[in-house]
């Protein structure tokens, strides 16, 4: 006779033991350390920190280790940890104009004050497998330091354009203007740009990459130029209530992309260049660029452009950009749906029976 399946709790516990075992793999191979992940899988750490919305290299590395290298799972782990942290307040906005630049390129000008600094990039590597890396004992080359320090002054390209009035002016919100926080309040639409940027900063790199790409292929075309991409370290400052002046908490690595976009002007605005903005923790250039493209596309409303493409549809973009939400809901299909399925079975059978009876009668 049939006996209903029991033992869910035991199965779950055993499943946890299995993943622990699989994560460790062959015990004959040395275990990965957090420091190794941090140092040698640094770009993975950067992505997890960016989309996990938490700047902590060690915890991001731990999440990557715990998730067996599944970065979306690692992002989820970091987010779930982040949500439990107390809030002390908001930092002073970081000033990327004062960044200690390690890489800085512009595609709009051949030379600019401060110069082009290629820095670390895979851009011009030939994608040939480096079989030398198979040998994990081999000596690795050391980068030579530049013959001269990079210029301390590195004005942002968009600021240079702004001096001539060629690009739209960007004014900071007054300090007292409350900025919505999407980790505290549900999204409501229409969403203002600060909220959109928060959403894009946490958004899935792959989703934003696809959307950004779609604007280049004509789905909401906006003629982008890379005004500037810069990578480096910036100070994070905080004003404690009792002091009343900013103190430096430390520094973080960020990648910033300022996209410069053509704009023919509208009834109310003269022709001038417009902006798309991308910012990530660590070195996430592809993400920063995609974010900037989508940011610009989502500004269609304020610039009186027709919103016809997916990348211009803020509700569509913002409701589907978060990979922790998306991953959870897609994967929840693995949960039992016996009850709904049974309801569908009953209905399909009854509809087939009705159709059969009708056919027989005809």
């Amino acid at each position, binding site marked *: 006779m049939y006996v209903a399946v029991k033992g869910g709790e035991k199965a779950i516990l055993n499943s946890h033991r299995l993943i622990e075992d699989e994560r460790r793999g062959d015990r004959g191979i040395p275990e990965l350390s957090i420091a190794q992940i941090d140092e040698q899988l640094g770009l993975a750490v950067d992505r997890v920190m960016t989309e996990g919305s938490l700047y902590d290299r060690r915890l991001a590395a731990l999440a990557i280790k715990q998730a067996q290298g599944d970065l979306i799972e690692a992002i989820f782990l970091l987010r779930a940890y982040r949500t439990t942290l107390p809030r002390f307040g908001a930092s002073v906005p970081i000033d990327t104009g004062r960044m200690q630049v390690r890489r800085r390129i512009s595609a709009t000008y051949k030379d600019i004050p401060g110069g082009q600094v290629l820095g670390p990039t895979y851009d011009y590597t030939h994608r040939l497998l480096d079989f030398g890396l198979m040998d994990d004992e081999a000596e690795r080359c050391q980068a030579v330091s530049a013959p001269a320090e990079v210029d301390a002054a590195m004005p942002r390209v968009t600021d240079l354009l702004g001096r001539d009035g060629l690009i739209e002016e960007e004014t900071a919100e007054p300090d007292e203007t409350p900025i919505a926080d999407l980790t505290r309040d549900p999204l409501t639409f229409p969403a203002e740009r600060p909220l959109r940027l928060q959403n894009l900063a946490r958004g899935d790199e792959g989703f934003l990459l696809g959307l950004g790409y779609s604007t280049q292929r004509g789905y909401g075309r906006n003629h982008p130029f890379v005004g500037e991409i810069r990578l480096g370290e910036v100070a994070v400052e905080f004003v404690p209530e009792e002091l009343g002046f900013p103190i430096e908490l430390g520094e973080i690595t960020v990648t910033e992309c300022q996209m410069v976009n053509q704009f023919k002007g509208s009834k109310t605005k003269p022709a001038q260049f417009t902006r798309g903005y991308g910012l990530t923790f660590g070195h996430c250039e592809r993400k920063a660029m995609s974010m900037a493209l989508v940011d610009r596309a989502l500004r269609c409303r304020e610039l009186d452009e027709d919103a016809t493409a997916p990348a211009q549809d803020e509700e569509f973009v913002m409701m589907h950009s978060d990979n922790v939400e998306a991953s959870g809901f897609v994967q929840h299909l693995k949960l039992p749906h016996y*009850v709904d399925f*049974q309801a569908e079975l009953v*209905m399909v059978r009854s*509809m087939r029976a009705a159709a059969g009876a009708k056919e027989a009668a005809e």
Partner: protein
Amino acid sequence: MSAATAPVATGGPETGYNFAYLDEQTKRMIRRTILKAVAIPGYQCPFGGREMPLPYGWGTGGIQVTASVLGADDTLKVIDQGADDTTNAVSIRRFFERTAGVATTERTEEATIIQTRHRIPEAPLREGQVLVYQVPIPEPLRWLEPRETESRKMHALAEYGAMHVRLYEDIAHHGQIATAYDYPVKVNGRYVTAPSPIPKFDNPKMHMNPAIQLFGAGREKRIYAIPPYTRVESLDFEDHPFEVQRWDEVCALCGSSESYLDEVITDDRGGHMFVCSDTYYCAERQAARPAAAAPWSEAGGSAK
């Protein structure tokens, strides 16, 4: 820092987190939302849903509601598909055992809070009980109009004509309304509301129920409620009144002809049988039956 925001760890056995995991500020926000939800039956209140240590789509909304309602004296029951021992029900029950240390039970009548996914228990609920539904898509108009900006206007104006048109098109094409679960209801004559994907079999249980029914959608960040003793009507037409599923068979384990049945495939030659989806209800009935009694049926025909 004021006294009210100071973290006080009075958690369950799992130290390091607040009682029932959520911090007090988050609970306050959710509690305010729940009270507004009760005051506006069937209206989806936006709330600042938090990231939970369980994945979105796996009950994070229900968990946040339960965590905000739950007290040390409560007795919690968790079911998924009507069963206490499905993996996700086990996992959520363990979460609250660990973070709140509350008593748990499988006995429907003993529970003061029941968190559920996809079912309403067969045993009638009573005053003093809170039924918390896990909701994947809280917006009943989503399939007609995916934009929140639009569906919000439709709710504001009680403009539900499109929903009736969709149901009527079903009748025209299929001779019946082709919605077997998540069948839309109207709450207290005003808001069209998604009953979460319970089978329409359970819809009538929502009507004038003495218990408090709360709905949590974590990923979509909505909470809504059906207060006790509130009218809940499944949308229908005079010439096509609402009907629930019925089976020709009875439960093979307890003989019930009144409960919602799950179909179980017993072999690869077309053999199948039907058993209660509500495992506690079924176990109680089996226990009350003489031990020697034969199974009620070994294999059934098809449902109608």
